[in-house]
């Protein structure tokens, strides 16, 4: 399906935003401006952006520990994200959550998740709400290849089929769960084949190609919104860095990494739209400058922002009113 110029620009903006944001997260983390550990989404931009492209704020996504890309693709404010990752009082979660727990319910973002396999059952519940309230909306669960082996995921897949809810399971297969390859950890010939065994369709698509992801997701949405129950995608992708910032990656040889980088989704997108005459290089360059400025502003705001005050917020939000 042909996307409009505005839509193409939006997709490029989001992919480039993820790239710029994550590169900056790496830098700020190395400089000690980001507490704790962050898992970045570099390399996988096309997956999140392709999946979220046709979602509205009323559709839900459940994310993973590698969640910044999902947030940005869903339209979450990067300033609020950066403040949260930098543990500031005005971060999206008041500095209580951090990188692995960013959530923005107004944007339909049900949270990054530091428990591997935590999101799919929650997405089934969010999809149940949509079915019950007849909203016509869907819930998407992002799940890694490693997480795909978790019992919670199997239970969620089965129950989504049984309850026939509009859930879309997106398996982002970037080859590794921490330091273990999917070929070792997944006993089935492929994730998709195993998923199909649960009784729902599962398409395999090139997660490094925005257009391939978007096309597959279009079919998933048609299926789920049409009341036909859940749908799944397996997106073949690569993470450009290690599991966490500073991971020495002894388990992955350089040639593999080079091959992955050759598939960089961002120049791939640019070549494709420019060669087809859909957008000009100048359009994309302008987007890049705007994105860079926005990320720079978010970082500066984050660095300047005050941290949370324990006297004010340590014991709030445990319950609706803390007693």
């Amino acid at each position, binding site marked *: 399906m042909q996307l409009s110029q505005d839509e193409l620009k939006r997709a490029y903006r989001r992919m480039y935003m993820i790239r710029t944001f994550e590169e900056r997260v790496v830098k700020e983390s190395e400089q000690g401006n980001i507490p704790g550990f962050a898992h970045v989404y570099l390399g996988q931009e096309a997956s999140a952006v392709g999946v979220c492209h046709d979602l509205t704020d009323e559709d839900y996504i459940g994310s993973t520990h590698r969640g910044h890309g999902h947030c940005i693709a869903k339209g979450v404010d990067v300033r609020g994200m950066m403040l949260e990752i930098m543990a500031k009082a005005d971060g999206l979660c008041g500095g209580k959550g*951090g990188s692995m727990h960013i959530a923005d319910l107004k944007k339909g973002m049900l949270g990054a998740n*530091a428990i591997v396999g935590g999101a799919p059952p929650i997405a089934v519940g969010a999809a149940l709400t949509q079915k019950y309230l007849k909203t016509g909306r869907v819930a998407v669960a992002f799940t890694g290849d*490693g997480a795909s082996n978790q019992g919670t995921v199997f239970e969620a897949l089965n129950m989504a089929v049984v309850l026939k809810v509009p859930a879309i399971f997106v398996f982002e297969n970037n080859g590794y769960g921490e330091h*273990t390859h999917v070929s070792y950890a997944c006993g089935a010939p492929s994730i998709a084949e195993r998923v199909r065994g649960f009784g729902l369709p599962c398409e395999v698509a090139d997660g490094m190609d925005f257009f391939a992801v978007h096309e597959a997701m279009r079919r998933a949405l048609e299926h789920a919104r049409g009341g036909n129950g859940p749908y799944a995608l397996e997106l073949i992708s690569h993470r450009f860095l290690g599991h966490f910032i500073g991971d020495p990656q002894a388990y992955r040889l350089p040639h593999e990494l080079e091959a992955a980088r050759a598939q960089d989704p961002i120049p791939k997108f640019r070549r494709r739209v420019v060669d087809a005459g859909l957008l000009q290089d100048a359009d994309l360059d302008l987007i890049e400058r705007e994105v860079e400025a926005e990320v720079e502003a978010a970082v500066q705001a984050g660095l300047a922002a005050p*941290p949370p005050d324990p006297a004010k917020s340590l014991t709030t939000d445990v319950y609706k009113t803390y007693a």
Partner: protein
Amino acid sequence: MPKKTYLQAINEAVRSEMKRDPRVIVIGEDVAGGQGGSGEPGGVGSVFGQMKGIYGEFGPERVIDTPISESAIIGAAAGAALTGLRPVAELMFVDFVGVCFDQIYNQAAKFRYMFGGHATTPMVIRTAAGAGFRGAAQHSQTLHPLFTMVPGLKVVMPANPYDAKGLLIEAIRDDDPVIFVESKFLYGMEGEVPDESYRVPFGEANVLREGEDLTIVAFGAMVPRALQVANALAKEGVDCEVIDPRTTSPLDQQTILESVERTGRLVVVDESPPRCSLAADVASIVAEQGFRLLRAPIRKVTCPHTPVPFAPQLEDAYMPSPARIEEAVRATVGFN
């Protein structure tokens, strides 16, 4: 005696038990690392390096990397233990117990009793616990109270490298399921650790400092903090006894009660939310069995009743700090 870290002590304990007993296996996520990847397997040795080099020494049959499937990891360890192996399973962070608690709580812990004493489940679950790393709500908990309240489990909280090795060897040789709670905070702690194998028995507290004015009972990472406060206050003439129970189940109640009999004052330091914590448990034991020994109300120094926050300022306020321990000691000593 050679100096080693807490981390090395754990590694040595597992190695020496694997050498001694071919039924001992290691199972968990990335305990070797690199399986199926383009590089060599075995380069990871657990995420904090606790099992470093063990794959190289014992190979894939005895150092088993698993999918990310905690229910199956812990359940398989229970099943293997029930049928003749002695698994040392790794639960990467204790927080992940939420995924697999049934296999611990309804299965492994209950086999012996439910089966009329005919079952033996010699398994160890090693797991990393504790806050202070900005790991936020799902990577920073302690959760030892959760395990301690389960009949059938033994729960070990080593607070120094010597104990880490001796308690882990004891855990591996124990015929019941043992939760071995490793403190992330203490992995780098150095201390004297003998090269040879030795055991530290369960249920025997370590008295780190004798004192006459007040008893401090502390667990795991809180032990060095309590000792630091006691040493500082000693200069002012406040003489604290510091007790590390080493295991929360079994708990050495006698050492605690005998100490309170001398001091009449008790502060319990526990890195947990306060309700149903070890601090609450020890306080209730002393209140019930040592009511007449007390000359002041028992003070608990714990975390607040909240999840672990991410921001450093919040997390530092969450933790039982030396300042809060000191405040509790002063208030208790000053009580008339």
